[in-house]
């Protein structure tokens, strides 16, 4: 499998606090990789370093090499907006723009100078399994949608830009079981076109959707591998304790 996204000797600290310690990890193309581990282990920090969301925190110090294929994501001559166009992101809490459903999809296309006619919008919404539910209400403010619909809209918004990678930061943690299953279906379907890295607290979810799983603890990668191996035959004792619910 071709490596799409990778981190080499990655260290991240906020002020004096080191959050990630010497991370070496890679994510294969068109696969779903789950990042699991107890709260505060650095999963989200790792995820957000790939689309340079830490650029916003003045006290973040990032050392190491992050790559999208061969592209150095932190190279001086690479515009951050280009990276975020190629590496999309879906957040923990659905955060649609305070605009209409239509505008939510069109906005990202507009600012990236991509075509944003109705067909493109429809295609993105269809890909996120949302079109049938909203096709008659495209002018409605997106905030009126249900939580699950809002999250699928956020996925449609990311998909519309035709990214190569989609990062998902606990996308289902605020949703009910039915909406969660819908989103999981959607994620599995998106795998055909996109490389997906998903942070999750939900062990069952990781087992249901992820091809590979990475277990992190206190800022380090403790174990990584094929999901069924990690859950059925963990090599590391820490991993075994965590997935069996002894801590976390």
């Amino acid at each position: 499998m071709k490596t799409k996204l990778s981190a080499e000797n990655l260290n991240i600290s906020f002020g004096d606090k080191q959050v990630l310690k010497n991370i070496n990890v890679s994510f294969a193309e068109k696969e779903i990789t789950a990042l699991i581990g107890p709260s505060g282990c650095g999963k989200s920090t790792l995820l957000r370093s790939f689309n340079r969301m830490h650029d916003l925190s003045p006290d973040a110090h990032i050392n190491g090499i992050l790559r999208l294929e061969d592209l150095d994501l932190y190279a001086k001559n690479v515009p951050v907006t280009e990276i975020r166009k190629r590496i999309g992101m879906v957040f923990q809490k659905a955060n649609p723009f305070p605009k209409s459903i239509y505008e939510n999809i069109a906005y990202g296309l507009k600012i990236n100078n991509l075509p944003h006619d109705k067909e493109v919008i429809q295609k993105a919404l269809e890909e996120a399994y949302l079109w049938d539910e909203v096709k008659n209400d495209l002018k409605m403010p997106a905030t009126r949608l249900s939580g699950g619909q809002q999250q699928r809209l956020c996925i449609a918004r990311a998909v519309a830009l035709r990214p190569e990678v989609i990062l998902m930061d606990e996308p289902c943690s605020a949703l009910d079981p039915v909406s969660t299953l819908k989103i999981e279906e959607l994620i599995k379907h998106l795998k055909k076109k996109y490389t997906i890295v998903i942070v999750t607290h939900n062990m069952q979810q990781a087992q249901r959707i992820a091809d590979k799983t990475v277990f992190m603890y206190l800022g380090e990668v403790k174990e990584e591998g094929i999901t069924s191996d990690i859950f059925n035959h963990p090599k590391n004792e820490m991993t075994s304790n965590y997935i069996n619910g002894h801590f976390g």
Partner: protein
Amino acid sequence: MQYKTNKLSSVIEWGTLLSTTLIVCFFLIVIIWEIVSKGASSLSWEFISKVPSEGMTKGGILTPIIGTVLLTLITALFAIPFGVCCAIYLNEYAENNWLTRTIRASIRNLSGVPSIIYGLFGLALFVQALQFGTSLIAAGLTLGLLSLPYIITTTEEALKRIPNSTREAALAVGATKFETIKDVVLPSAMSGILTGVVLTLSRAAGETAPILFTGAAFYINGSTGYINQEFMALPYHLYMLSTQHQSIDQVRPIAYGTALVLVIVVFLLNLTAFYIRYKYRKNEN
């Protein structure tokens, strides 16, 4: 017994709070009643459409109305762009260091400076140093300075209420920081910003002290509305009719009428702020 004392004390607490509220309302009603009952009789179309005549004992108050409207307009044109941009800088761009904290504390302190001090400052800066003379523009800029700290503070509060996840949403689809602020943050914060702006302007429109030395005139005969000349303003007109006029008793009804018009203008501005908030809330949900 224990039960009964509890009940009694809760009645006392409730009664104290209620009576305080009622006393406040009582004074408010007395003030409004005093102005409305004595001012309503002089209120008419002529009163607001005619200029003062015969030593201000006859005619209307059109000249001070025009003056106040133009004055508020100049204040707005000066204070809104500077105030909003300053707030955007402080909330979105400035790092949290001692310099930013000093700037922010200074702005908060400025909003506590008495308005007469602004009047003196305006006299020194705009009227004398910059040679604007006592004029509409000098007074408007002085009121603009007075309004700046309020606009900056309310705008900053409105921006603070926008959660970071909203900013991240725009950045994650490839928006630059400026695009994020322009297209997502500002529209989300608009109701809060506009409410602060309108309330600040309604306060500025009623100010007397800052325009006293910078451009407000006792009386203007003939045409008005030139920004390089003196002007009449409602609050100053009211002050003058009530205390400085040679036949105070004769002009008392005009004074009350002026007070009523001023209250109505401020009330309408507040109503606008209320409407803006209502409209944006409706759009948001």
